[in-house]
Structures are given as structure tokens and as C-alpha cells.
């Protein structure tokens, strides 16, 4: 966070106010509102228009009323987002923009605001089998507690960060650091997190996680048992035994049901750990950053002495592989039935490669989750609960910066949205501390009237493009990131 991009050359003069600041490339003026972006003075927080005809992730271009040729308003193509629309809190008055536009002949209303979310946080999904920390362990940023490790998912570790307890329930510093971390995560910046008695992980939405300095490349293909099930037939005849090492369930092909149906003979192998069902072992080692999310550096440490009476014999071959195919070893039993490392036969190489090939790229996913409750709703309608009911009845579509938001069933408007689908720089903050995020409610004009909307405040898209809003007339147009559902 210390690296501010600094290029002092090419100063230009801002004429937005009498101060007439000279602003260098990448800097902002004395007001913090206008900046030199690529040799042009732009407003830092313009109202953002999503233009679906611009290329995906397309360049931002200034949208000045004087340049508008009146041709751009083609129904679905333009969507006024909440980004840069401005806000008030608590919301005594109608939202900054209540936009009317024609959608397939029906007159639709979009209520556009930037909402201050006191109750908000992010759920972070980190695609890795590596042990990041124990469930419920505290997650820290710059030494402050900002969240915790929550229930892990298939192939992914989950963090729950932010929320009102950390934003306003702890010390001032905790709230400040939490808000800053959430803001950066939501704006798709990289944030370093440390987990108590666990790993240090760099999280960036849409990018691979970096665990203790190591970049994660791939997710595991499945647990060790699932891997055995998927690939047993491909190993048959090429090797006498296969162990797939995994933090959750380690699989052994000769004992596993998948091997049994192939008539796989016993090998006398004995795995340390707690046997679940035949060929499936829990807790072969401690969680860690070694093989398959365990703390194993040498896989032979999970084996007990081999039993000759159960089939072990000198020359027996063994493949040990992790669930991502990133680690593997090939061994041959010596005369004392001790496995000795040997070169991996070429014939087995494709099966190891196949495992890694079947592993998807590891990514960090950041879902912004927040409650659009309280007074915010009165910016949309005079009867707040009517909006909640309309959302729950699917009559009102909820989006954040144009990205579709999942609204939780049950009471209130608790929404969840993938931050990578939102325009750049969508999020801001207020010193409460709380995050500010764009929020749009879209519904038919008739429904809007019916739920007691601020009908007198409704404006057309054209009018907003022409005149802007109470908090400035600057607009920007960006392409939507993905086809809107």
C-alpha cells in the first residue's frame, strides 16, 4: 500500500475551481476530486454509466453532455449505475438518481444510489488445499483482527472478513484497518492477510492466492479417494500400488472399492492414520503446506512397515501422488521391504499429468455481502418494507454497479455480489467506518408507483446524461464486465 504511483512530469492545469492546481500525471488536486488521468483532468468519482456496447472491461471514456449525440440511448444498452451517484446518510431524501428507461416497451425504473453499508463484509474463497488456519482462527491485517476462517469448501478455504463487529465493535484502529482491507479487496487490490497459528496469504479477487510466499497454481482434482476413483483404471497394470496423499481423505488403490472392482491384488501396505472405509484414511498427517494440504514433506512417513503375509514383496512398485499432481514419487520395495525412490516410468507420467491437468486454476473469489436495510430503503420508496417485499417477490431486481446481486431469502435485503463483475473503483468508504457501494433497484414503473416510490423524482436516462445529478454532472461510460443475466 506504500507504493503510490508517482510520475511528476507532465503537469496540467485544472480549471474546475479558482485554485487552478497544476496536477501531475496520476495525482489529484487540492480538492481530492479532480485528477490528472493520462494527461486529462477527470473527476475522480464520476457517475458511471454502463454501456453494454463497449468491449468487456472496456476503456473508461469521459461522457460529457456536450459530446453526447443523443444516439446512445438504446434501451438495454445503457444502464446508470450507482457508482459516483453520491449519497446521503441517513437517507431522508430520495436517492440521488431515480431513472426511468424503456426496457422492451415497458417503462422501467432504476433507483440508483451509493449505499453506505454499516453491515457489510466479504466472503473470500481461496482455492487451495493448503492449510491456512484452523476453523474460527482469527484473520489479521496489519496486526488487527478483521475476520476469521470459516467452514472450508470442496477444494477451497473460506474466510469471513469485516462485518459490524470488526468495523465498529472493536477499537478505532481495528475498524480503520478492517474498512481499509475490505475497501481494497472489493476494489480488487491485493491484500496480505495473516491467520493466527496459520499461514500468511495474499488475496486478490480474480487472481491466484499466494500462500506463505508461494503462488498457488491449481486446485486439487478431488480428495484422495475421489482421485483413486477417477484414475484407478489408468494405473492398472502399470504399477502395483498407488497412494493419493490428501489432507482430507488419503486414498489407497489396492484397498479402495475402485481397485477392488478391478480385481486389484493386496500389497501389504499399511497407512498411518484413521481408516474410514477400505482404502480411505482420515488424518494421515497434520494440515500444512506440504503434500496435498498436509504437513508431509516426505510421503513415506505416512507408511508403517509393509506386511509380507498380506502381499508385500521385493520389487513391488509404488506411486505416491498428491491431489494436485504437483508432488509425486515412485518407489520400489527392496529386499527388506523398504521403499526406495526410483525414476518414474514414462508409462506412469501421463497419469500424473492427467491429475494436474484436471485441476482448475486456483483463484481468490471475493464476494461482497451486505445488508441494504434501514433507512437506505426510504431513498427508494416512502414505505421501506414495500421495497423489501418487492425484492423478495422478485419484482425488483437488485444490482451493484450493474452486476447482478444474489439476495438472500428471508427477512431484509441481504445481498451478495462478485466484486469482479463490478466497474473499477466501485467502492468507497466513510469514516464511520463503513463501505460505500453502488446499489441499483430496477423495477417496472407501475410497480414502482405501487410501492410508494418517489414518482416526482423520476428522470429519464437522457435527462441524467444531459444534466447530471446533485453531486456533479460528470459521467463516465464503461463496458459491462459480463453479459448481464
Amino acid at each position, binding site marked *: *500500500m*506504500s507504493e*503510490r504511483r*508517482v510520475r*511528476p512530469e507532465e*503537469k496540467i492545469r485544472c*480549471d*474546475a*475551481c*479558482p*485554485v*487552478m*492546481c*497544476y*496536477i*501531475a500525471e496520476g*495525482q*489529484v*488536486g*487540492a*480538492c*481530492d*476530486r479532480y485528477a490528472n488521468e493520462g494527461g486529462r483532468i477527470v473527476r475522480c468519482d464520476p457517475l458511471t454509466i454502463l454501456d453494454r456496447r463497449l468491449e468487456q472491461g472496456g476503456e473508461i471514456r469521459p461522457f460529457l453532455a456536450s459530446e453526447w449525440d443523443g444516439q446512445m440511448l438504446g434501451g438495454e444498452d445503457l444502464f446508470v449505475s450507482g457508482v459516483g451517484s453520491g449519497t*446521503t*446518510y*441517513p437517507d*431522508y*431524501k430520495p436517492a440521488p438518481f431515480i431513472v426511468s428507461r424503456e426496457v422492451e416497451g415497458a417503462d422501467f425504473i432504476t433507483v440508483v444510489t451509493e449505499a*453506505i453499508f*454499516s*453491515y457489510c463484509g466479504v466472503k473470500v474463497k481461496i482455492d487451495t488445499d493448503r492449510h491456512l488456519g484452523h476453523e474460527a482462527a482469527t484473520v489479521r491485517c*496489519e*496486526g488487527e483482527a478483521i475476520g476469521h476462517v470459516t467452514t472450508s469448501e470442496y477444494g477451497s478455504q473460506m474466510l469471513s472478513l469485516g462485518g459490524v463487529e470488526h468495523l*465498529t465493535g472493536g*477499537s*478505532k*484502529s*481495528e475498524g*480503520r484497518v478492517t474498512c481499509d482491507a475490505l475497501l481494497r479487496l472489493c476494489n480488487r487490490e491485493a491484500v496480505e492477510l495473516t491467520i493466527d497459528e496459520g499461514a500468511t496469504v495474499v488475496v486478490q479477487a480474480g487472481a491466484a492466492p499466494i500462500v506463505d510466499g508461494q503462488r498457488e497454481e491449481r486446485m486439487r482434482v478431488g480428495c484422495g479417494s475421489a482421485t483413486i476413483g477417477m484414475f484407478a483404471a489408468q494405473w492398472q497394470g502399470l504399477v502395483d500400488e498407488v497412494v493419493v496423499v490428501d489432507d482430507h481423505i488419503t486414498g489407497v488403490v489396492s484397498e479402495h472399492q475402485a481397485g477392488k472392482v478391478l480385481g486389484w491384488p493386496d500389497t501389504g501396505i499399511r497407512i498411518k492414520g484413521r481408516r474410514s472405509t477400505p482404502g480411505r484414511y482420515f488424518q494421515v498427517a497434520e494440515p500444512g503446506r506440504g503434500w496435498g494440504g498436509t504437513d508431509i514433506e516426505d510421503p513415506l512417513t505416512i507408511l508403517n512397515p509393509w506386511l509380507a503375509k498380506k502381499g508385500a514383496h521385493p520389487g513391488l512398485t509404488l506411486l505416491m501422488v498428491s491431489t494436485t499432481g504437483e508432488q509425486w514419487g515412485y518407489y520400489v520395495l527392496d529386499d527388506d521391504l523398504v521403499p526406495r525412490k526410483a525414476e518414474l516410468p514414462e508409462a506412469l507420467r501421463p497419469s500424473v499429468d492427467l491429475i494436474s491437468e484436471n485441476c482448475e486454476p486456483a483463484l481468490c473469489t471475493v464476494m461482497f455481502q451486505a445488508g441494504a*436495510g*434501514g*433507512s*437506505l430503503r426510504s431513498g427508494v420508496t416512502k414505505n421501506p418494507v414495500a421495497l423489501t417485499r418487492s425484492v423478495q417477490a422478485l419484482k425488483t431486481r437488485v444490482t451493484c454497479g450493474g452486476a447482478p446481486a444474489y439476495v438472500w431469502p428471508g427477512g431484509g435485503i441481504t445481498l451478495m455480489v462478485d466484486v469482479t463483475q463490478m466497474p473499477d473503483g466501485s467502492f468507497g468508504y466513510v*469514516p*464511520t467506518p463503513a463501505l460505500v457501494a453502488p446499489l441499483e433497484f430496477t423495477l417496472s414503473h407501475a410497480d414502482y408507483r405501487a410501492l410508494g416510490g418517489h414518482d416526482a423524482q423520476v428522470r429519464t436516462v437522457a435527462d441524467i446524461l444531459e444534466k447530471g445529478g*446533485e453531486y456533479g454532472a460528470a459521467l463516465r461510460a464503461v463496458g459491462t464486465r459480463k453479459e448481464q443475466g
Partner: protein
Amino acid sequence: MQRAQAAWLPCGRRLHLHHGPIDMILGIDGTGRDAAFRRAARRFDTLLDELVAELPRLRAPHGPRPEGETARIMAKATAPFAPEFITLMAAVAGAGAETILRAICAGPGIRRAYVNNGGDIAFHLAHGERFDAAIASAPSGLIRIHAADPVRGIATSGQGGRSHSLGIADSVTVLAHSAAQADAAATLIANAVDLPGHPAITRHPAREIAAESDLGERLVTTAIGPLTQAEIARALEAGRARAATFRRKGLIVAAHLTLQGTSITEGPLPQLQKEDLPHA
């Protein structure tokens, strides 16, 4: 170019004045309220232009006596702090607030009035009146100032504001006789809260961040990593010592300093008991 703007806040009781980098919130109680708001808005109309007319002088460490009303308040407020490096800009926010407060008070029927210029606040209290002010970092969050108290200005300086600091304080809030004096003192106390040479503190020449900064090539703080409690205490103590010097000279009434969750106070901070503040 945008002109000065005035708009009622949603509550309909406070006025928001905006022009370029200036945002002021005004609150006035008393029978003369409406006329006072009109005087304030009229005075605000030329405030920024007056400052801009003398801007090179205001940004320079030395020079002739400035002309404008606000500029003179800045000069008067910063003079007692010489020879420490300071330009008149150290008091610009507080002085701007004072100029508008003068306009408000230039008429009858004003019981209470305040001008909050981005956290630097000038206020007026008629006999027997009082103000409760929220200080974000104070333990109780609220302080109460009575008309009999000598305080008529509150200012906060530190990281995260619009101007840059040579120090590392999260915030330094100063209570003083005037907003301009509080503003200048807060700037200098915040500069003193520091750990020179500490590796966790990132600094850049001010001109690299803002081309026209009055701080020139001086290194301003751009990032602060985690500090130990001992380091925090040491940095805060350096600031408190500076505040104590200012207090002995009668330049400030009290100061409240905060760094990474730890606070220290110099002088009497009239705190109220913690009250539950509403939040959504």
C-alpha cells in the same frame, strides 16, 4: 469554472457551502438565524477567490504581510509558532471557518453558531450556551464546551486528511481560542508525533504527491506499518511534549493525540460520558 455553491443538507437546518477544495457545514441557532445564513453565503461567495489571489504568498515560508481577511487570520495564527517551519497554509481551514463565522456573528440574534470546515471548526457561544462536539478518537467520543470556557476553535490534523503530514499520528485534535490557531497547532503537533528513521514508515517528497504542496521536497508520510506499543508510546510522547510547550505559551487549551488505537491527552479535555450513538 464552478462557482461557489450553497445547499441545504437533507435535515434542512444546516447549510453546506462548497467551492473547489472547500466544504463547510454551517449550523446557526437564534432568532437571527436566517439573516446570518444569508450573510455567510454572501461572504463565502468570494472567499476562495480572495485566497487564490494571494496563493503564492500563502504557500511561501516568508513574505510580506498578506492583504485578505482570511489570509490575515492565517498570518496572525501561525506567527506565534515561528521559527518552526510553517507556511500560512497550516491555518487555512481554520481561518476560512473564522471568516465565515465573523460574517455570521455580524448581526443580532445568534445564540450559537458553528462553521465546520472539513473538521476544523470555529464556533460562537452566547452567554450560558454550550456545544457538544464529537471527537472520533476520544474515549467517550464527546466533549462539551460551555460559553465560559476559553475554547472557540477545534481542529484535527493527521493521516487520512486532505493535507499531508510530516508525522505519523492518526489524528491530533486541538482545542484552542480560535479555529485558525487550533488548525496550525494541530498540524505542528501531528508533525511531532513521529519515529524518525523507522523502517515501517514510508515517506515521499511532498511535491511527488502533490505538485504544488507548500511542503516542497519535505518527506511526508504515505504509509505506516504496525508499530509496537513501546514505539507508539514514544511517538505519542514526542507529540504530547510539543503540545505541552504550546500550552505553556498559551497557544492551545488542550490536545488529544491518537496513533494506532492508543491515545494521549494534554490539557483538560471536557469529556462527556459515553453515550450510545445511533448507527444503521
